[in-house]
């Protein structure tokens, strides 16, 4: 790299700090051949020059014994300054005992006095600048600029390299800062970078020490490989408090899934998949959770379902069922529609409900083909029933759903009230503008439009206010908290009411839950307490 730089007539800037005019003159004469040299006659002058310089110095040659501000003080000041600490410093001294001391304080090398031959001095300077540039270059491609943590690929490579010599019990953790995706959308990357930097600082301090490494895994997640700890929940709570104190205007939450006592027999990437699984299944009231046998069992089952999915689609193991939807009015709910869903007659696991496999297939992008088929079946059934009952159907992974819907309506000679498309809130997080446009186009065609998974990740109010949604379907995780003090479901229903929309709550299993939904102002419900899933004929 240096030869390239020199061949382009670029000269690195070097600062010589020595109170002796003769020494300065001599060094300037030696170094000027290859470098752009600036001299300072004491420590304070050197600091002034360093702070004022617009173009950074590539090297400082520093005398130790100087009046006013000694070389030691300059070394300390530079190494504790964010802007200056990366400049390599070569100390010039005749004191043997000072050499080790200065290296400990962050000096890169030393040149003994009296100076050796000029070639030796030049070679040493050149080597230190080159090493430093290589280090900075490596770090710039291996590290995430926002957090200073490794990027994923470098992180895995380092773990693999360290692994043979690790004798201690180690954990793999996935640490997510909930809320920053939203902050990023509202206030920009600059704000999320600040939060992530702080989180990385806390992780470095509390989790890694000098016995672990961490990386930026994704927009909101940091991966860490660290000594096994017994007090993770406590550490996370403390870190959460510090993070919240540092950014009081934001609602952010630090949560972690941990794969404990990782073993060399399991591939490194798997540790972090397990930690992610623990994080995905983390209970609401906890900051951390380990990857358990139970989760491992679930992951194995998921892997099996994914492996069996293609055959299920090809060999008609998927069975169309209808979940009747009831309007909650007066004392007796009245059927007002039916949601078309797939049940899966699995060869070894028996009959699987949509919740057992649909989220998994959606997450893995495996639902598109079957969703098209589901839409077509729903349209065909609506035609057979002469549109007596609107059929609700997910259009979660369908591309250009308004076009698909309108072509089905034409094909089966239906009107738009035959089908109620259900969009999913998560689609908005990926492409808000695109999703709003598609919903508006669907609405313009005359369809009633529903939104599933409502309230799980939180849409900005500005987006909500502009959405022409007719029915909000709160996420299952909100319904699961119906008996808690906070009861976020009542908030979701109240919000939908304020938006002049209806709410449809699914999977209601008891009379008590149904009564609670009446009280909260929910207008549509579905679940076993009203009717189980049925075939078209049964309906």
């Amino acid at each position, binding site marked *: 790299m240096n030869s390239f730089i020199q061949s382009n007539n670029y000269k690195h800037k070097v600062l010589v700090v020595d109170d002796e005019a003769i020494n300065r003159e001599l060094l300037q004469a030696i170094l000027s051949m290859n470098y752009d040299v600036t001299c300072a006659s004491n420590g304070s002058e050197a600091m002034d020059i360093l702070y004022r310089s617009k173009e950074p110095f590539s090297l400082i040659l520093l005398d130790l014994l100087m009046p006013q501000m000694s070389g030691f003080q300059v070394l300390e000041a530079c190494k504790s300054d964010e802007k200056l600490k990366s400049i390599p410093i070569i100390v010039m001294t005749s004191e043997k005992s000072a050499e080790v001391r200065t290296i400990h304080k962050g000096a890169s090398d030393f040149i003994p006095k009296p100076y050796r031959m*000029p070639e030796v001095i030049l070679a040493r300077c050149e080597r230190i600048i080159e090493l430093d540039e290589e280090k900075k270059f490596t770090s710039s491609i291996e590290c995430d600029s926002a957090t200073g943590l490794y990027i994923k690929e470098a992180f895995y490579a380092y773990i693999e390299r360290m692994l043979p010599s690790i004798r201690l019990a180690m954990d793999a953790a996935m640490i997510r800062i909930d809320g920053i995706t939203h902050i990023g959308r509202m206030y920009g990357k600059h704000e999320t970078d600040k939060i992530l930097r702080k989180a990385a600082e806390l992780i470095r301090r509390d989790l890694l020490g000098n016995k672990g490494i961490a990386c930026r895994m994704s927009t909101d997640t940091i991966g860490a490989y660290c000594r096994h700890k017994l007090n993770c929940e406590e550490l996370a709570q403390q870190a959460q408090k510090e993070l919240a104190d540092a950014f009081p205007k934001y609602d952010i939450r630090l949560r972690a899934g941990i794969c404990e006592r990782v073993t060399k027999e399991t591939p490194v990437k798997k540790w972090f998949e397990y930690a992610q699984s623990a994080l995905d299944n983390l209970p609401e009231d906890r900051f951390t959770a380990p990857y358990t046998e139970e989760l491992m069992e679930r992951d194995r089952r998921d892997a099996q379902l994914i492996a069996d999915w293609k055959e299920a689609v090809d060999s008609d193991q998927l069975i169309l069922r209808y979940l009747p939807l009831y309007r909650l009015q007066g004392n007796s709910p009245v059927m007002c529609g039916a949601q078309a869903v797939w049940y899966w007659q699995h060869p070894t696991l028996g009959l699987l409900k949509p919740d057992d496999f649909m989220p998994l297939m959606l997450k893995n992008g495996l639902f598109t083909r079957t969703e098209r088929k589901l839409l077509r079946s729903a349209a065909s059934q609506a035609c057979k029933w002469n549109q007596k009952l609107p059929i609700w159907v997910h259009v979660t992974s369908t591309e250009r759903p308004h076009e698909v819907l309108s072509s089905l309506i034409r094909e089966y000679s239906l009107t738009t009230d035959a089908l109620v498309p259900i969009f999913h809130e998560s689609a908005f997080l990926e492409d808000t503008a695109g999703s709003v446009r598609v919903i508006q186009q669907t609405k313009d065609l005359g369809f009633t439009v529903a939104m599933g998974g409502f309230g799980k990740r939180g849409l900005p109010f500005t987006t909500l206010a502009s959405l022409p949604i007719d029915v909000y379907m709160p996420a299952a995780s909100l319904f699961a908290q119906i008996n808690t003090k906070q009861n976020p479901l009542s908030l979701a229903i109240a919000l939908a009411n304020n938006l002049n929309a209806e709410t449809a709550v699914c999977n209601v299993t008891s009379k008590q839950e149904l009564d609670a939904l009446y009280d909260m102002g929910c207008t549509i419900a579905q679940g076993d307490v009203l009717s189980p899933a049925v075939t078209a004929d049964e309906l």
Partner: protein
Amino acid sequence: MITIEMLRNFGADTEEGLARCYNNEALYLKLIGMLPNEKNFDNLSAALAADDLDAAFEAAHALKGVLGNLSLTPMYEKSSQITELLRERTRMDYTPMLKELLDMKERLTAMIND
């Protein structure tokens, strides 16, 4: 005007001194020419007169560095001797050694100004 020959006669290791200056004679002689203005001769004298051994050590140490870089061997050796004694904060009469050093400086200054 001082020459390399004169410096050699003075006892300087001119070969080493010149090599340190890329064999640039003009540069070497220019640096030698700066020596009469070297403040640490005065600093050392004043510190020793005031019995301030810390300040004396700093001045002697700095002088030793400069004289070494100029390869002025007799002066370098004398300054090294004083520096090592002062490093231990040895209490003694430094006058004879200091005089020797200053005399050499005077001789050199005379050659420079001649």
